[in-house]
């Protein structure tokens, strides 16, 4: 009997040790990823100060320079992507929730599911074929379009979910007042849920900000200046991807500063989302 109890206790202890180590390992990796970025990125930020956000990258093996033009490119592309994503995703989300059995909603749901499952690099390839080739050059616009497509599923799905969470009683109250459905939705349900919609758009923005693969073949790789929406541009993630894999100390250090910058921007968005809507699945 005692040995049986002992065995149980021991197995329990071993299980505890195993799951604790695994959990701590996972959280440690998360902390380490951020820590390394801080250790590598902070000195660069301290050294360059504000010039980091204005200058363009130095020559290979030369000075660090900065990621000014790339930061502008990132902001322009991500904002364009999230605005366009909101313009398409929010109404689609509303439609899918309010008319869930209508044929158009059903098709839209399938379409959305498909886009959500398409690897983001593939989105980039398609935009390359449909936009970059006809335009005759990669551009911030093509990059923004790719990012918009990757952000769309998040925006639409989150919009729909937030609407679905509104208690039925509000609709019933509105209907009992004799308001037609479209007025109920536009005047009561949507305004009530602005928070949820804002969350959805922010989530999409966060996704767009973090993606690299969709802009690889669409945005160009112009790091020296921002030339306009219809011209080649670059994003922070693209700069990291290109600069990190070189032997140049100055480019690698710039890439680390960009990593830190990207972490800060993503965290700001993520915690804005959390502030708006509490626990949200990312």
């Amino acid at each position, binding site marked *: 009997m005692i040995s049986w109890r002992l065995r149980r206790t021991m197995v329990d202890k071993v299980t505890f040790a195993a799951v604790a180590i695994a959990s701590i390992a996972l959280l440690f990796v998360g902390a380490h990823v951020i820590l390394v970025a801080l250790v590598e990125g902070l000195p660069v930020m301290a050294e360059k100060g504000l010039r980091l956000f204005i200058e363009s990258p130095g020559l290979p093996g030369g000075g660090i320079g900065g990621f000014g033009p790339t930061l502008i490119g990132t902001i322009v592309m991500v904002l364009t992507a999230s605005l366009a994503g909101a313009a398409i995703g929010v109404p689609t989300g509303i439609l899918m929730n309010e008319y869930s059995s209508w044929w158009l909603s059903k098709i839209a749901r399938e379409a959305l599911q498909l886009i959500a499952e398409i690897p983001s690099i593939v989105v980039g390839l398609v935009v390359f074929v449909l936009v970059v080739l006809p335009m005759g050059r990669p551009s911030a616009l093509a990059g923004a379009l790719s990012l918009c497509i990757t952000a769309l599923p998040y925006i639409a799905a989150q919009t729909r979910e937030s609407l679905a969470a509104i208690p039925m009683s509000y609709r019933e109250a509105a209907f009992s007042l004799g308001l037609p459905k479209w007025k109920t939705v536009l005047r009561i349900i949507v305004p009530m849920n602005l928070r949820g919609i804002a969350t959805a758009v922010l989530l999409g923005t966060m996704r767009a900000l973090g993606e690299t693969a969709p802009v690889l073949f669409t945005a160009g*790789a112009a*790091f020296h200046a921002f030339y306009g929406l219809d011209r080649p541009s670059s994003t922070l993630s693209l700069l990291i991807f290109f600069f990190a*894999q070189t032997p140049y100390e100055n480019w690698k250090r710039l890439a680390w500063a960009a990593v830190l910058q990207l972490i800060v921007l993503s965290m700001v968005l993520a915690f804005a989302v959390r502030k708006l809507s509490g626990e949200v699945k990312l």
Partner: protein
Amino acid sequence: MKVKPKIIAVIAAVALASAAALYFYLSMETPPNPVQLLGSGATFPMEQIQAWIVQVRNKHSWVQAEYAGGGSGKGQSDFLQGIVDFAASDPPLKTADWEKAKNAFGGVYQLPMILGGVAVVYNIPEIPSDVNLKLTGEVLVDILLGKIEYWNDPRIAELNPGVNLPRSRITFVHRSDSSGTTEVFTTYLSLVSGEWKTKVGAGKLVKWPLSEAGFAVGAPGNPGVAEAVRTTPYSLGYVELAYAKGLGVAALRNRAGRFVLPTADTIKAAAAGAITIQDASANLVELKILERLLQSQDPNAYPIVSPSYLLIKHPSAYTQEKRKAIAVFLDYIFTDGQKPENIVAGYVPVPESWAKLGQQVAAQLRDFRG
């Protein structure tokens, strides 16, 4: 009484400042509207192109070029698909692609802009940095065919008496993208060995025997290969000389039987045999420029030397403003850009006749009336 001098000082300062501003404004020519030029392609000349772009920007701020790299294959691909204004490639366009480009743009100029050497680089911690490993083309081929597997192989040791060679497996780092540097390197290997020529051959993408055996990794671009060699003990790779900084560089036996390191002088020695190009819009493949450079008999010549080409469309394929900007860009590259003070370490200016060729094309672009 106390205030007056202050007021006068302020007025004087403002007047002076506005006078200075006015002078500055008047002395400035109104610059043309900024024009963006987008290029991509070879990483072999990339450090030099990046430097030229900055130099051109400092001189003509309205010519804003961007160079994305990506490998010669990407450069040619982007150029043929019409999504860049210029491209760089170490080998000239293949005949079929040259014809495609000619049909698409009404003509294509291929201008050799810079010379460089493909350095065979290694990372062997045991070898001090002031010692250079000596290798021959034949040994290199056998390493890459998998016949020589370890650094202390007798055939390597024989060439390097007194060098402490470790018994470590040789890891090969090659390009993962379609690369002109790879084509230059494999063309050299094909000239050295008939077996290499039949088994592997020369090209921008080849089937590396070592990759199939599991002793190779791929890395993007010249910078990627340099970085992978730098971080991988006992590795061997090939990069343009400019990327060899901080790595072990092998001295290769040239056709005269001497072991030479890639340096500006040994690259120049090989380039002495560079032939004149009559017409940059012709099909350059037929001139076998690279093969001739690789077969240089000069006793001081480094054995793997190649030019890198700028690909430019026929003037009629550009808008007027782009044409002007490219003319300025080219004119700079082939005049001031070839001066020693503007050349990045690891490259060599092109021969006078090639520079002239570039200047002529620049003039054609400038004077073109559509």
